[in-house]
């Protein structure tokens, strides 16, 4: 538990270790410099910071791995189905394309965005952000990049899609023979590395690093 503070913070930007709880509005002092453990709001228990290490090596490596898996996941056959001697294999894009072909354009766009575009854009963002922070460059792209990244987080559904694929496999297994392709395993690996990258990237650690870079001459 972190100490709640009794005094309103001074106006100076130096009071950077005071944050507001997003879920109950309490002002809390979070000593990020020496934090080695997660910090929760003392009143409502909201996770304020994960206190991951501030070298940004882990999220960078995980996001890079996720991007490689994403490339594999869209380049190879995702699933193959065979029934009555006929076979059909599909890629991820082809599956989304057939939604559009049957007039479900809205569903196709939503699937493309939630399952591929948003998660991949986020991983590109993590790679770029970590590179900028590691290079200690106060780039003008830093703040918009970090903002976009943390706002998109709620709208990535890679994990939901992975479960959806597994449900589909079970549904079909009684009717036809299903063979998971390379892209299937790549997408599962993408989901795992994506989730790990996002949990290893701590919001307050990022903003603290951004502050430091901007304060430096």
């Amino acid at each position: 538990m972190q100490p709640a503070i009794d005094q309103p913070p001074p106006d100076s930007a130096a009071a950077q270790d005071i944050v507001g709880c997003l879920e109950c509005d309490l002002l809390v002092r979070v000593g990020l410099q020496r934090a080695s453990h997660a910090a929760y709001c003392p009143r409502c228990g909201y996770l304020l910071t994960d206190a991951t290490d501030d070298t940004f090596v882990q999220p960078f490596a995980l996001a890079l791995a996720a991007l490689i898996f994403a490339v594999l996941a869209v380049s190879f056959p995702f699933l193959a189905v065979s029934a009555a001697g006929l076979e059909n294999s599909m890629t991820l894009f082809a599956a989304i394309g057939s939604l559009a072909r049957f007039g479900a354009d809205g569903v196709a766009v939503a699937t493309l965005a939630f399952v591929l575009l948003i998660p991949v854009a986020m991983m590109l963002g993590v790679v770029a952000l970590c590179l900028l922070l590691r290079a200690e460059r106060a780039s003008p792209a830093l703040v918009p990049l970090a903002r976009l990244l943390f706002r998109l987080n709620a709208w990535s559904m890679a994990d939901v899609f992975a479960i959806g694929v597994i449900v589909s496999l079970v549904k079909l297994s009684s009717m036809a023979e299903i063979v998971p392709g390379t892209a299937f395993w790549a997408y599962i690996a993408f989901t795992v590395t994506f989730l790990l990258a996002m949990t290893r990237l701590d919001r307050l650690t990022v903003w603290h690093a951004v502050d430091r870079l901007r304060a430096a001459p």
Partner: protein
Amino acid sequence: MTTALASGRAVCHVCLHPSPASESACRRCGSTLHARIPHSLQRTMALGLGAALLYLPANLLPIMVTSQFGRTTENTIIGGVVRLIEAGSYPVAAVILIASVLIPLGKLAALALLCWAARQRRPAPPRQRTALYRVTEFVGKWSMVDVFVVAVLVGLVQIGGIMQVKPGGAALAFAGVVVLTMLAAESFDPRLIWDRYGREGARD
């Protein structure tokens, strides 16, 4: 203990920095600043109402149309669950039932309860309501499972004249339900849960 609001601050919803409440953008990251989400309860209820209305076509229309050896069957969400139970796939039936029926309805009920309680003079303890809010926010996107199942089946099951799956009108309606409930949860400001608690100095 002091809240940001009580000391004239507004907490940034992106970077948690408490900027002076009179300013319009966060001092650290430049995001739009507001001490509380404007018209939070109205927005949440309006989006929730929209989701509830869309939930009707989502359940009445077929979510997918299957043709097998020239025979065409239309499946609703509930119909799909019944078929899975008949086929003995209980775990998958449970996943779809929870994701497509229990989560969306539970979420709408929870948001209605949270909006109602935020206006009561003596609402339930804030910690309990915060827990309800967190569950509501966490489970939201998982309702999308059934839509993605349709996406996979439509893409995969196109085998000549033998077997074909087409998307039904409920798929879009249901995706709309999920997106609207997610927006509704995002519009609800959990700080409203604690506002009266602080003012009356009560303890839980």
